[in-house]
């Protein structure tokens, strides 16, 4: 009995000591969990050189994987990169700690308009800052589309893939879609002239009916494989994320395999999404996490990332350093007119979530 008491006292003392030490000086370690292919090659290296903090960098390829890990808790990650609508739900679940803005002087570099859009998901920008943003549009192999649909193919419209006649003609060269119901179903609703933010079952069913007509022509639903396949010429049309299509375009150009890829934000409008930097509530190194987020918001660092990943950023200070080729590309930095047509994702409650995902399974399997 006394022995046990002594032991527990000792343990408590040790824990107290450890906690005290952590407060005074965090160990120079940081665990970052980010999307695959989503940072410049030298960003981590530069951060380590500047701060002396050793970074462990892991990657994922879907919000669902990130969310499941966060929901299970104790991930050990200090910085994660959730997309806006996922962020909103995760904030509700108490996943994130509020940012200490006094430690983020580079916040002044951020674009006020885009940060205001982010506030739809994270009121007052309390928990997150914008990392990169982009659109969900259409990437296609220019030669193969022309070969099958002729020179007047509707490459500026969602009809290119949502019109069954076009999809049927492209089926044999390969159509792919993101395995992301929260992005594809709103796109279908938008094409049908419905409110893409609708959560009405009737609207979801209309989108489902449309997608079911083209699903037989879709080779697969996957959120990262299309980068390689588009670049290799294994598929000829992907509904995908802007930057990923540009990566495919670059890889094809580097391989000199004769494949030419284009990305378009269709005239009907497209989904604008934002990936954000946030710190989990149970992050073991919150100090270092703040340092990292502040480091990323540096104009030059963000410009380097954009120049590498070809996604737009929300960092005004970075724009002069971003390649002209990128800032002038309407697929990356859309024109003001196109920007007005962009819509954002809403947070689905449990019931809508189930309806949407059930519809999605039904679309994918034809059952």
């Amino acid at each position, binding site marked *: 009995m006394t022995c046990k008491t002594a032991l527990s006292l000792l343990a408590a003392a040790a824990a107290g000591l450890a906690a005290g030490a952590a407060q005074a000086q965090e160990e120079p370690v940081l665990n970052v969990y980010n999307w695959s292919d989503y940072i410049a090659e030298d960003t981590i290296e530069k951060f380590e050189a500047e701060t002396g903090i050793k970074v462990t960098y892991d990657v994922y390829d879907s919000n669902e994987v990130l969310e499941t890990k966060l929901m299970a808790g104790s991930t050990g990650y200090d910085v994660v990169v959730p997309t806006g609508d996922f962020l909103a739900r995760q904030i509700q679940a108490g996943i994130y700690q509020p940012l200490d803005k006094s430690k983020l002087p580079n916040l002044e570099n951020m674009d006020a308009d885009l940060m205001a859009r982010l506030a739809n998901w994270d009121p007052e920008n309390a928990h997150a800052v914008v990392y990169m943003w982009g659109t969900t549009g259409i990437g296609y192999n220019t030669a193969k589309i022309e070969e099958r649909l002729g020179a007047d193919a509707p490459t500026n419209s969602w009809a290119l893939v949502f019109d069954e006649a076009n999809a049927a003609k492209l089926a044999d060269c390969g159509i792919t879609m993101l395995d992301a119901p929260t992005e594809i179903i709103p796109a279908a609703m938008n094409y049908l002239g419905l409110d893409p933010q609708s959560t009405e079952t009737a609207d979801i069913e209309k989108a489902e009916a449309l997608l079911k007509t083209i699903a037989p022509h879709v080779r697969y639903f996957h959120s990262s494989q299309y980068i390689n396949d588009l670049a*290799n010429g294994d598929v000829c049309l992907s509904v995908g994320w802007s930057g990923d299509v540009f990566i495919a375009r670059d890889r094809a150009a580097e391989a000199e395999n004769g494949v030419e890829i284009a990305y378009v934000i269709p005239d009907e409008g497209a989904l604008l999404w934002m990936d954000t930097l946030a710190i989990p509530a149970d992050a073991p190194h919150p100090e270092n996490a703040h340092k990292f987020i502040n480091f990323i918001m540096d104009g030059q660092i963000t410009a380097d990332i954009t120049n590498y990943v070809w996604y737009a950023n929300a960092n005004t200070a970075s724009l002069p350093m971003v390649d002209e080729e990128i800032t002038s590309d309407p697929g990356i930095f859309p024109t003001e007119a196109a920007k007005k047509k962009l819509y954002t994702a809403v947070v689905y409650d449990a019931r809508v979530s189930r309806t949407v995902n059930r519809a999605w*399974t039904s679309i994918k399997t034809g059952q």
Partner: protein
Amino acid sequence: MTWIVRRGRALVVAVPTLWLALFFLIPFLVVLRVSFSEPAIARPPYTSLFDWDQGLLTITLNLGNYAYLLEDDLYVSAYLNSIWMASASTVICLLIAYPMALWIARSPMKNLLLMLVILPFWTSFLLRMYALIGLMSPTGFINSALGLVGLGPITMLQTDFAVYMGMVTGYLPLMILPLYSTLEKLDGALLEASHDLGARPWRAFLDVTLPLSMPGVIAGSLLVFIPSVGEYVIPALLGGPDQLMIGKTLWTEFFNNRDWPLASAVAIAMLAFLVVPIMFARNALGVKE
């Protein structure tokens, strides 16, 4: 003396028992518990079963998850389709593995051939599946070779064919090894006796070799069938979007719907519908041997 022997036995059994309790039974009970709760936006994302309020213990069991499995035909068809795919893969594996095992057992180069069977196991399973993607993709080896002789590219990936290819190449060694071990132990004198009694080779195979190798057939089939039913990686990488398999369905519930309780119910139901009958079948057959 006997006391030590008894205690010794208990100790020897204690280690695996403890291991199973810690890493199988307890996780299983956790899954079982989650399957009776309700989803919630929280961490963890499900409600608690037990509520302790002023000395009053309330246990809330939500049976709705299991009821839902029957309500929506998605789950039943996913189960049936998984069983079908797994059965077909098992039969194909058996048809390929049996002659191979027989040949290896009777070959003078047994060790070398066995080595070749085991060799793929030293490569990561995932890597072997990616190798199949390279082989079967529209610009892969097979289609390039076909292109040389003027035959058009065949779509092999994202079809049932690709999934069967994956299952068979992935699990074939699990079928060959148990078959080999029973066939290798087969007493050659029995075959000689059947020949002496006038049996033709085919007859001798059916009446002597096959019945005596049944334990290997059953063991191999179970080793292939059980992991195939719940297989997630192969259909996810090689399969098409229209394949409904229980492994993928479970993934959707867990990751896309964030409905851990329902996902747990799917897992428990799979265990009840598949593993329990298999265990009974195995015991019944085991007794007969």
